[in-house]
């Protein structure tokens, strides 16, 4: 028994990412729910339709989550199946790899989300379709940010190999408290507000709440989200190309999966 304990203890002791991973999840959960609790204790009368707003935001957040994870999964599956090298010796341009991952991630996202969207209506009487036409704009914006995060993480996988895998899973949860998914920006401490304003999520979820609570649309929020998306997407694509160049120098492409 002690031997088996030692086998895992040595593994944890020798790997800083594993130690950080153990600390990371509880910390993020506590921070996220701390802000949610603070918001409800301060503004308990804010929502007339709390369930609808929370559930709609949760589903929208899942669009981001699914699209990003789908993008990462496509990459990780090639590593896990040790097929990664085969992919990079096929006559495929990097832009072709990116485009095919983007479209495959969209299919995976929709497969995962459509049943959840359908279920919320009979179970909770909430329909995300109540958002109307702006839903399409919100969906697209979240999807773009999701695949942008996917590009950042995949670039890390390309450059650093499978050891970057934990970051792939945890990157989204870091954004959850800062993204102001369930509460307005003002709930965050000032320092976090500055960081949060640099994320398109703040504008997307602020607008979602605005549409649901006030039945009006502020295109300025959406415009801000799309501008930030464009900047991050360009950075993500650039980083992916850069990671590929570095991987060819460092040899990650040939050692991937080992």
């Amino acid at each position, binding site marked *: 028994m002690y031997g088996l304990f030692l086998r895992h203890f040595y593994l944890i002791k020798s790997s800083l990412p594993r130690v950080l991973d153990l600390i990371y999840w509880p910390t993020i959960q506590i921070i996220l729910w701390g802000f949610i609790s603070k918001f409800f204790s301060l503004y308990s009368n804010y929502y007339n339709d709390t369930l609808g707003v929370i559930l709609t935001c949760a589903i929208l957040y899942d669009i981001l989550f699914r699209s990003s994870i789908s993008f990462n999964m496509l990459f990780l*599956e*090639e590593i896990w*199946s*040790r*097929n*990664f*090298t*085969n992919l*990079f*010796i*096929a*006559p*495929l*341009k990097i832009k072709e790899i990116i485009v095919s991952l983007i479209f495959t991630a969209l299919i995976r996202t929709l497969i995962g989300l459509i049943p959840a969207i359908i279920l919320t209506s009979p179970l909770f009487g909430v329909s995300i379709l109540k958002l109307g036409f702006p839903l399409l704009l919100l969906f697209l914006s979240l999807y773009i940010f999701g695949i942008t995060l996917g590009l950042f993480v995949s670039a890390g996988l390309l450059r650093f190999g499978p050891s970057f895998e934990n970051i792939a899973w945890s990157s989204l949860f870091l954004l959850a408290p800062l993204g102001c998914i369930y509460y307005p920006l003002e709930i965050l401490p000032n320092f976090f507000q500055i960081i949060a304003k640099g994320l398109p999520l703040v504008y997307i979820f602020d607008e979602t709440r605005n549409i649901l609570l006030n039945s009006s649309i502020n295109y300025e929020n959406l415009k801000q989200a799309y501008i930030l998306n464009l900047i991050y997407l360009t950075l993500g694509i650039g980083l992916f190309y850069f990671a590929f*160049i570095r991987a*060819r*120098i*460092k*040899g990650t*492409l*040939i050692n991937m*999966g*080992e």
Partner: protein
Amino acid sequence: MKTPLEVINLSKVYNNTDAVKDISFKVNKNEIIGILGPNGCGKTTTIGMILGLLKPTNGKALINGIDIETNRVNLLDNLNFISPYIELPKKLTVKQNLEVYGRLYDVKNLKTKIEYLSDKLRLQDIINKITGELSSGQKNRVSLAKSIINDPTVLLLDEPTASLDPETGDFIRSFLENYQKEQETSILLASHNMNEVERLCSSVLMMNKGSIVDQGKPADLIKKHGRKNMEEVFLKLSREKNES
């Protein structure tokens, strides 16, 4: 006519360590060249640079006279690779895998091609099976089918018969012999199986610590070093270099 594969003064340095040191060689049309050496001698690094997976620190690898660094994606149409360290997606059937790679290499008449490969590599009985559930010998035949699906002019084989039973190993070697004669493919074969090298290769590059320490026809190398077979030549050269 351009040489299918020519390596000129190729070097790779990782973290101030020379993984490959200034090596040069050619693989002509319709020729199998062996590349031998102990683990970590630079064989896989050399293959990685030829495939464009690694950027050389110095020198170049020319495919049909064109540097892989200048036109990587287009030249990859002419190359393919098999290694026991690389597998095909495990959850796809054999046929699905061949379809995927046939499309990635833009193979014309893909259905006919898969039927041809299936026949030549005895895949008929496993064509609809899940790749991950196959035996290592079956997986090896499927990987070989993938590696020739685009009729590469240059085929790179990294230990193609490693961990196979003698019958399957012999089948693969016979297949490669016949395939190379039929298609006039240029093959670079990295192997630890000396009998395989003696049987298949017209010439051998002996590598150690990143350098080519000797090269020539297997029979000439055996004679030159006064040994009985390639295994003894391999041991002599590996030990000499390690002691120096």
